[in-house]
Protein backbone atom coordinates (compact mmCIF):
# COMPACT_ATOMS: atom_id res chain seq x y z
CA UNK A 1 0.00 0.00 0.00
CA UNK A 2 1.39 3.39 -0.95
CA UNK A 3 1.43 6.10 1.67
CA UNK A 4 -1.23 8.80 1.23
CA UNK A 5 0.03 11.73 -0.81
CA UNK A 6 -1.85 14.60 -2.38
CA UNK A 7 -4.84 13.38 -0.38
CA UNK A 8 -4.86 10.06 -2.25
CA UNK A 9 -4.62 6.50 -1.03
CA UNK A 10 -3.44 4.15 -3.77
CA UNK A 11 -3.61 0.38 -3.53
CA UNK A 12 -3.13 -2.46 -5.99
CA UNK A 13 -5.59 -5.32 -6.15
CA UNK A 14 -5.79 -8.06 -8.78
CA UNK A 15 -3.95 -5.95 -11.33
CA UNK A 16 -6.17 -2.93 -10.71
CA UNK A 17 -4.90 0.34 -9.26
CA UNK A 18 -7.44 1.63 -6.79
CA UNK A 19 -7.48 5.31 -5.83
CA UNK A 20 -9.33 6.51 -2.74
CA UNK A 21 -9.62 10.15 -1.72
CA UNK A 22 -8.63 11.00 1.83
CA UNK A 23 -10.22 14.47 1.80
CA UNK A 24 -13.96 15.10 1.88
CA UNK A 25 -13.73 18.15 -0.36
CA UNK A 26 -12.05 18.19 -3.76
CA UNK A 27 -12.31 21.90 -4.43
CA UNK A 28 -8.88 23.52 -4.28
CA UNK A 29 -7.54 23.88 -7.81
CA UNK A 30 -3.90 23.53 -6.86
CA UNK A 31 -4.71 20.31 -5.02
CA UNK A 32 -6.83 19.08 -7.92
CA UNK A 33 -3.94 19.65 -10.26
CA UNK A 34 -1.66 17.60 -8.01
CA UNK A 35 -4.27 14.85 -7.83
CA UNK A 36 -4.56 14.82 -11.60
CA UNK A 37 -0.80 14.58 -11.99
CA UNK A 38 -0.52 11.79 -9.43
CA UNK A 39 -3.23 9.71 -11.07
CA UNK A 40 -1.80 10.54 -14.49
CA UNK A 41 1.57 9.18 -13.38
CA UNK A 42 -0.18 6.02 -12.25
CA UNK A 43 -1.76 5.65 -15.70
CA UNK A 44 1.53 6.32 -17.46
CA UNK A 45 3.24 3.60 -15.42
CA UNK A 46 1.19 0.84 -17.05
CA UNK A 47 0.90 -0.21 -20.67
CA UNK A 48 -2.82 -0.98 -20.40
CA UNK A 49 -3.84 0.65 -17.14
CA UNK A 50 -6.76 -0.61 -15.09
CA UNK A 51 -7.87 2.08 -12.73
CA UNK A 52 -10.63 2.29 -10.13
CA UNK A 53 -11.35 5.65 -8.49
CA UNK A 54 -13.49 5.44 -5.33
CA UNK A 55 -15.39 8.46 -4.08
CA UNK A 56 -16.56 7.05 -0.77
CA UNK A 57 -15.19 9.90 1.32
CA UNK A 58 -16.00 12.69 -1.13
CA UNK A 59 -18.76 15.07 -0.08
CA UNK A 60 -18.01 18.02 -2.35
CA UNK A 61 -16.23 18.47 -5.65
CA UNK A 62 -15.97 21.24 -8.20
CA UNK A 63 -16.03 21.32 -11.97
CA UNK A 64 -12.23 21.52 -11.86
CA UNK A 65 -12.23 18.07 -10.28
CA UNK A 66 -14.52 16.83 -13.04
CA UNK A 67 -12.09 18.27 -15.55
CA UNK A 68 -9.21 16.39 -13.96
CA UNK A 69 -11.22 13.16 -14.16
CA UNK A 70 -11.92 13.78 -17.84
CA UNK A 71 -8.21 14.27 -18.47
CA UNK A 72 -7.46 11.00 -16.66
CA UNK A 73 -10.11 9.26 -18.72
CA UNK A 74 -8.57 10.55 -21.92
CA UNK A 75 -5.15 9.27 -20.81
CA UNK A 76 -6.53 5.86 -19.90
CA UNK A 77 -8.28 5.53 -23.26
CA UNK A 78 -5.14 6.57 -25.11
CA UNK A 79 -3.32 3.68 -23.46
CA UNK A 80 -6.14 1.22 -24.21
CA UNK A 81 -6.89 0.99 -20.50
CA UNK A 82 -10.01 0.77 -18.36
CA UNK A 83 -11.35 3.27 -15.85
CA UNK A 84 -14.18 2.79 -13.37
CA UNK A 85 -15.63 5.13 -10.76
CA UNK A 86 -17.41 3.85 -7.65
CA UNK A 87 -19.01 4.72 -4.31
CA UNK A 88 -20.25 8.11 -5.47
CA UNK A 89 -22.71 9.71 -3.03
CA UNK A 90 -26.13 10.65 -4.45
CA UNK A 91 -25.48 14.40 -4.35
CA UNK A 92 -22.19 14.00 -6.19
CA UNK A 93 -23.75 11.54 -8.63
CA UNK A 94 -26.32 14.20 -9.40
CA UNK A 95 -23.48 16.51 -10.45
CA UNK A 96 -22.26 13.80 -12.86
CA UNK A 97 -25.81 13.40 -14.17
CA UNK A 98 -26.42 17.12 -14.66
CA UNK A 99 -23.18 17.48 -16.61
CA UNK A 100 -23.95 14.25 -18.53
CA UNK A 101 -20.63 12.88 -17.37
CA UNK A 102 -22.47 9.80 -16.18
CA UNK A 103 -22.45 8.90 -19.87
CA UNK A 104 -18.73 9.39 -20.25
CA UNK A 105 -17.62 7.41 -17.21
CA UNK A 106 -18.48 3.85 -16.20
CA UNK A 107 -19.88 4.33 -12.68
CA UNK A 108 -20.65 1.59 -10.17
CA UNK A 109 -22.28 1.64 -6.77
CA UNK A 110 -19.50 -0.25 -5.03
CA UNK A 111 -15.83 -1.01 -5.54
CA UNK A 112 -16.65 -4.72 -5.56
CA UNK A 113 -19.08 -4.31 -8.44
CA UNK A 114 -16.56 -2.20 -10.32
CA UNK A 115 -13.73 -4.69 -9.77
CA UNK A 116 -15.84 -7.45 -11.30
CA UNK A 117 -16.12 -5.55 -14.59
CA UNK A 118 -12.42 -5.22 -15.40
CA UNK A 119 -11.43 -7.35 -18.34
Amino acid at each position, binding site marked *: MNPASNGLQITEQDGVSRVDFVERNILDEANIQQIGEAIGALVDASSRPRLLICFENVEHLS*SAALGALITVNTKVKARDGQLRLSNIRPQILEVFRITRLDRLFEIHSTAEEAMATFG
Partner: protein
Amino acid sequence: MAASKHDSDSNGDADDVRRGVVVMHDVREEIDRLQDTVLVAVADAGFDEASTFAVRLALEEAVANAFRHGNSEDPSKTVTVHYEVSPHRIDLAVEDEGPGFDPGAVPDPTEDANLEIPSGRGIMLMRAYMTSVEIVAPGNRIEMVFRRD
Protein backbone atom coordinates in the same frame (compact mmCIF):
# COMPACT_ATOMS: atom_id res chain seq x y z
CA MET B 1 -0.82 39.36 1.13
CA ALA B 2 -3.65 40.88 3.16
CA ALA B 3 -6.22 38.50 4.55
CA SER B 4 -9.74 38.68 3.21
CA LYS B 5 -11.95 41.46 4.44
CA HIS B 6 -15.30 40.56 5.93
CA ASP B 7 -17.94 43.16 6.64
CA SER B 8 -21.19 41.79 7.94
CA ASP B 9 -24.42 42.84 9.50
CA SER B 10 -25.87 39.90 11.32
CA ASN B 11 -28.88 39.48 13.53
CA GLY B 12 -29.65 43.18 13.56
CA ASP B 13 -32.56 43.04 11.19
CA ALA B 14 -36.15 42.31 12.17
CA ASP B 15 -36.47 40.04 9.14
CA ASP B 16 -33.58 37.91 10.37
CA VAL B 17 -31.46 38.75 7.37
CA ARG B 18 -27.74 38.14 7.46
CA ARG B 19 -25.68 40.02 4.92
CA GLY B 20 -22.08 40.87 4.29
CA VAL B 21 -19.31 41.67 1.86
CA VAL B 22 -16.12 39.67 1.51
CA VAL B 23 -13.10 40.76 -0.50
CA MET B 24 -10.68 37.91 -1.24
CA HIS B 25 -7.44 37.09 -2.93
CA ASP B 26 -7.00 33.73 -4.65
CA VAL B 27 -5.98 32.00 -1.45
CA ARG B 28 -7.67 28.75 -0.45
CA GLU B 29 -7.96 29.75 3.18
CA GLU B 30 -9.79 32.96 2.23
CA ILE B 31 -12.19 31.08 -0.04
CA ASP B 32 -12.83 28.52 2.70
CA ARG B 33 -13.51 31.32 5.15
CA LEU B 34 -16.03 32.84 2.73
CA GLN B 35 -17.74 29.49 2.29
CA ASP B 36 -17.89 28.95 6.03
CA THR B 37 -19.38 32.41 6.59
CA VAL B 38 -22.07 32.03 3.95
CA LEU B 39 -22.92 28.41 4.72
CA VAL B 40 -23.26 29.02 8.45
CA ALA B 41 -25.72 31.80 7.64
CA VAL B 42 -27.57 29.47 5.26
CA ALA B 43 -27.81 26.70 7.85
CA ASP B 44 -28.83 29.13 10.59
CA ALA B 45 -31.64 30.39 8.34
CA GLY B 46 -33.04 26.87 8.30
CA PHE B 47 -32.10 25.78 4.78
CA ASP B 48 -31.63 22.03 4.43
CA GLU B 49 -28.50 20.11 3.53
CA ALA B 50 -29.40 19.90 -0.15
CA SER B 51 -29.68 23.67 -0.25
CA THR B 52 -26.33 24.05 1.48
CA PHE B 53 -24.76 21.69 -1.06
CA ALA B 54 -26.23 23.71 -3.93
CA VAL B 55 -25.07 27.05 -2.57
CA ARG B 56 -21.58 25.76 -1.78
CA LEU B 57 -21.18 24.37 -5.30
CA ALA B 58 -22.52 27.42 -7.11
CA LEU B 59 -20.45 29.79 -4.99
CA GLU B 60 -17.32 27.70 -5.49
CA GLU B 61 -17.82 27.71 -9.26
CA ALA B 62 -18.49 31.45 -9.41
CA VAL B 63 -15.46 32.30 -7.29
CA ALA B 64 -13.18 29.92 -9.22
CA ASN B 65 -14.31 31.44 -12.53
CA ALA B 66 -13.78 34.94 -11.16
CA PHE B 67 -10.18 34.21 -10.17
CA ARG B 68 -9.24 32.00 -13.09
CA HIS B 69 -11.02 33.72 -15.99
CA GLY B 70 -12.11 37.11 -14.70
CA ASN B 71 -8.86 38.04 -13.00
CA SER B 72 -6.75 35.89 -15.36
CA GLU B 73 -5.09 34.34 -12.30
CA ASP B 74 -3.46 37.66 -11.41
CA PRO B 75 -2.64 37.18 -7.72
CA SER B 76 -2.86 40.90 -7.05
CA LYS B 77 -6.50 41.05 -8.11
CA THR B 78 -9.39 40.42 -5.79
CA VAL B 79 -12.86 38.94 -5.98
CA THR B 80 -15.68 40.57 -4.03
CA VAL B 81 -18.66 38.56 -2.83
CA HIS B 82 -21.85 40.15 -1.54
CA TYR B 83 -24.17 37.78 0.28
CA GLU B 84 -27.60 38.19 1.81
CA VAL B 85 -29.31 35.28 3.53
CA SER B 86 -32.90 35.47 4.66
CA PRO B 87 -35.29 32.70 5.66
CA HIS B 88 -36.64 32.27 2.13
CA ARG B 89 -33.86 33.31 -0.20
CA ILE B 90 -30.13 33.57 -0.61
CA ASP B 91 -28.64 36.29 -2.77
CA LEU B 92 -25.03 36.07 -3.91
CA ALA B 93 -23.07 38.44 -6.11
CA VAL B 94 -19.55 37.57 -7.21
CA GLU B 95 -17.52 40.29 -8.87
CA ASP B 96 -14.00 40.18 -10.32
CA GLU B 97 -11.65 42.88 -11.54
CA GLY B 98 -11.55 41.69 -15.12
CA PRO B 99 -13.00 43.12 -18.32
CA GLY B 100 -15.97 40.74 -18.41
CA PHE B 101 -16.94 38.12 -20.99
CA ASP B 102 -19.75 37.05 -23.27
CA PRO B 103 -21.63 34.14 -21.70
CA GLY B 104 -23.05 33.35 -25.11
CA ALA B 105 -19.57 32.41 -26.24
CA VAL B 106 -19.31 29.58 -23.74
CA PRO B 107 -20.09 26.27 -25.49
CA ASP B 108 -22.65 23.91 -24.00
CA PRO B 109 -20.60 21.35 -22.08
CA THR B 110 -23.36 18.76 -22.22
CA GLU B 111 -23.25 18.42 -25.99
CA ASP B 112 -21.62 15.18 -27.11
CA ALA B 113 -18.82 17.01 -28.88
CA ASN B 114 -17.91 18.90 -25.70
CA LEU B 115 -18.29 16.14 -23.15
CA GLU B 116 -14.57 15.32 -23.10
CA ILE B 117 -13.42 18.92 -22.81
CA PRO B 118 -12.07 19.36 -19.26
CA SER B 119 -13.36 22.90 -18.72
CA GLY B 120 -16.48 24.97 -19.25
CA ARG B 121 -18.96 23.53 -16.75
CA GLY B 122 -19.00 26.25 -14.11
CA ILE B 123 -21.85 28.41 -15.42
CA MET B 124 -23.89 25.35 -16.28
CA LEU B 125 -23.60 24.06 -12.73
CA MET B 126 -24.49 27.46 -11.27
CA ARG B 127 -27.64 27.56 -13.41
CA ALA B 128 -28.54 23.99 -12.47
CA TYR B 129 -28.27 24.53 -8.72
CA MET B 130 -29.45 28.11 -8.24
CA THR B 131 -32.97 29.42 -8.83
CA SER B 132 -31.62 32.18 -11.05
CA VAL B 133 -28.25 33.30 -12.38
CA GLU B 134 -27.64 36.61 -14.08
CA ILE B 135 -24.35 37.58 -15.66
CA VAL B 136 -24.34 41.35 -15.42
CA ALA B 137 -22.78 43.22 -18.35
CA PRO B 138 -19.95 43.45 -19.16
CA GLY B 139 -19.68 40.03 -17.50
CA ASN B 140 -17.46 40.59 -14.48
CA ARG B 141 -20.34 40.25 -12.02
CA ILE B 142 -22.57 37.23 -11.47
CA GLU B 143 -25.74 37.56 -9.41
CA MET B 144 -27.32 34.34 -8.16
CA VAL B 145 -30.47 33.71 -6.18
CA PHE B 146 -31.51 30.56 -4.35
CA ARG B 147 -35.15 30.51 -3.32
CA ARG B 148 -36.62 28.07 -0.87
CA ASP B 149 -39.51 26.13 -2.45
